[in-house]
């Protein structure tokens, strides 16, 4: 093995600085990149550009895209509302079975979505754990837009929790302790120290959650069904169009790819959890002077 492989971890801004990257890794890296990029390229090559606009602005396509954006926005908000306290508890709390809780909460990351769909079905479905009670209360979840949001939240929540917990673990605790000794109550510490410090992590977590929600397919198909304007999100529309109109499916896929690219670019413009670095880059003295105190 080349000795240089281990030496390349430190980053330098100098372009001529030594970089210990063995040459063979470039070969494999190109191969790896090809595995990801080539299929995308092949799909783009198949797009019928003459019909592109009519295809992606058809009634069903617009309805599906609108539904996808709406449900993903709602589930992202749900992820933030539920995920921030959860991440805080996981990062700062000290209690029994904390590790187990973390493992369980992160499970949807590695679970096939269809399994998630089945699990949701047996929870909120008519015959499910909560479904029967909800039915009595007049709430029907299956086949409703609520089901779509639930499925999306189920698969997207771990992304937010992971990003945020990572950000919370990178040294905010000492700032929080100092803030407390300066007289800030736990609520104030959370609002004016913890949250601002992890804002970049929260933002990238939210963006990833949104992206995951937007792409959610398996759990939705299993749990929510597929009806235009109600539960048929863009991925489901693509899946259906593929049956009869591959051109439309390709065109819509491209739309989804474009959204995904935008989202990933937004999330990885800076690495998640780099809260301190983010604040260091951000401000100019003039901008700071304009702001009022707190």
């Amino acid at each position: 093995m080349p000795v240089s492989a281990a030496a390349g971890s430190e980053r330098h801004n100098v372009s001529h600085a030594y970089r210990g990257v063995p040459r063979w890794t470039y070969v494999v890296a190109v191969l790896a990149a090809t595995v990801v990029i080539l299929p995308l390229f092949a799909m783009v090559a198949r797009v019928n550009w003459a019909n592109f606009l009519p295809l992606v602005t058809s009634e069903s396509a617009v309805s599906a895209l609108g539904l996808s954006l709406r449900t993903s926005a709602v589930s992202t908000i749900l992820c933030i509302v539920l995920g921030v306290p959860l991440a805080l508890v996981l990062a700062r709390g000290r209690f029994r079975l904390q590790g187990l809780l973390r493992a369980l909460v992160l499970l949807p990351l590695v679970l096939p979505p269809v399994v998630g769909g089945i699990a949701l079905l047996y929870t909120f479905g008519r015959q499910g754990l909560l479904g029967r009670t909800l039915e009595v209360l007049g709430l029907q979840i299956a086949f409703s837009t609520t089901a779509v949001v639930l499925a999306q939240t189920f698969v997207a929540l771990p992304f937010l929790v992971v990003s945020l917990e990572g950000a919370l673990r990178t040294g905010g605790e000492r700032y929080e302790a100092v803030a407390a000794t300066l007289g800030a109550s736990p609520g104030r510490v959370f609002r004016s120290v913890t949250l601002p410090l992890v804002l970049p992590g929260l933002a990238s977590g939210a963006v990833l959650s949104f992206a995951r929600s937007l792409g959610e397919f398996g759990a939705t198909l299993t749990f929510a069904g597929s009806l235009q304007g109600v539960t048929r999100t863009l991925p489901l529309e693509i899946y259906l169009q593929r049956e009869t109109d591959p051109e439309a499916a390709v065109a819509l896929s491209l739309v989804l790819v474009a959204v995904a690219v935008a989202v990933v670019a937004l999330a990885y413009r800076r690495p998640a959890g780099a809260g301190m670095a983010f604040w260091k880059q951000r401000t100019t003295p003039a901008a700071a002077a304009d702001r009022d105190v707190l």
Partner: protein
Amino acid sequence: MTFALEAAVAGRGFDVALRLGPTETVAVMGPNGAGKSTLLSVIAGLLKPDTGRAELNGRTLFELSAGRGTWTPPHHRGTALLAQEPLLFPHLSALENVAFGPRSAGVSRKQAKAEALHWLAEVEALDLQARRPAELSGGQAQRVAVARALAADPGLLLLDEPMAALDIHSAPLLRRLLKRVLAGRQAIIITHDALDALMLADRVVILENGGISEEGPTREVLQRPRSPFAAGLAGLNLLAGTLAGDGIRTAEGWTVAGLLEDGYADDRRPEGRGGNGYPAAPEGERAAVAVFPPSAVSVFLDDAHGSPRNSFEVAISDLEPHGDFIRVRAGSLAADITPAASADLGLIPGLQVHFVVKATSVAVYSA
């Protein structure tokens, strides 16, 4: 208006009792791991001791036995903490950082800003008010951090090695600033530097192995150290033992002759503990220390006999430059000799030599 603390943390072998007068600044010194940071954490409310009680200006900070009892959370204590690193909130400007304490206390925006400006002026950092922490040098940031701590109007200011992370040019500036702002305040400052203790503190407390081994007015502790740690700070050799005639007898069996000091009976050591971390001397024997400067020690290859002289056979552990001299270390003892003498004797680490010191150069007093 005083501060009083007794606290024990069993898991860390920490057991300390400490009182501060109304305007007293105490320097806490001790080797790494002695429990200095534990002390500040307990006072600030960041660490819960198993048992103990603390009171600040008539208010109870905690009163615990077996982990139960009264416990005031950190934000209600009025014990602002200034750490080794400034830890300014990176998303706030210097001004907003300093205004954080007043705002937390419920002061209006306008009033908080006015107070923040006052304290920034106090630390000569008014021109830095609009800057973000990332745009401040280490020294500037620490000055702003001092202003932030003071703006919180703490009843007791806790400083955890505030100069340790500063460069050689910034430290003196901050030391002067602290001398000014600590005057007339209750404060506890952890430091490794005898100069900090001399300049900033009225009193020094030596913390070793989780307990106080020695305390007293700074000057006196440095002049007449009773613990090896304090002697090290003062740059003196210290041997501990029991009183024997005009000198002491050490545990190793050395007899050290010296001059018995006046005021032998005074006892600065806290009651109930053996000083220096050693067990209390047996009944009928009095614990005492023999103290002498390294410059009074001569080094010989052979045992030089002579009644007024003390001679200790030691193995050299280290040689290091020390000003114009070579400091010869042998365990806890040190001798300063000229480079020429060192070369003549052919000193190298591991060599067996005799450290010889005149009795008239040795001060003997109670430990």
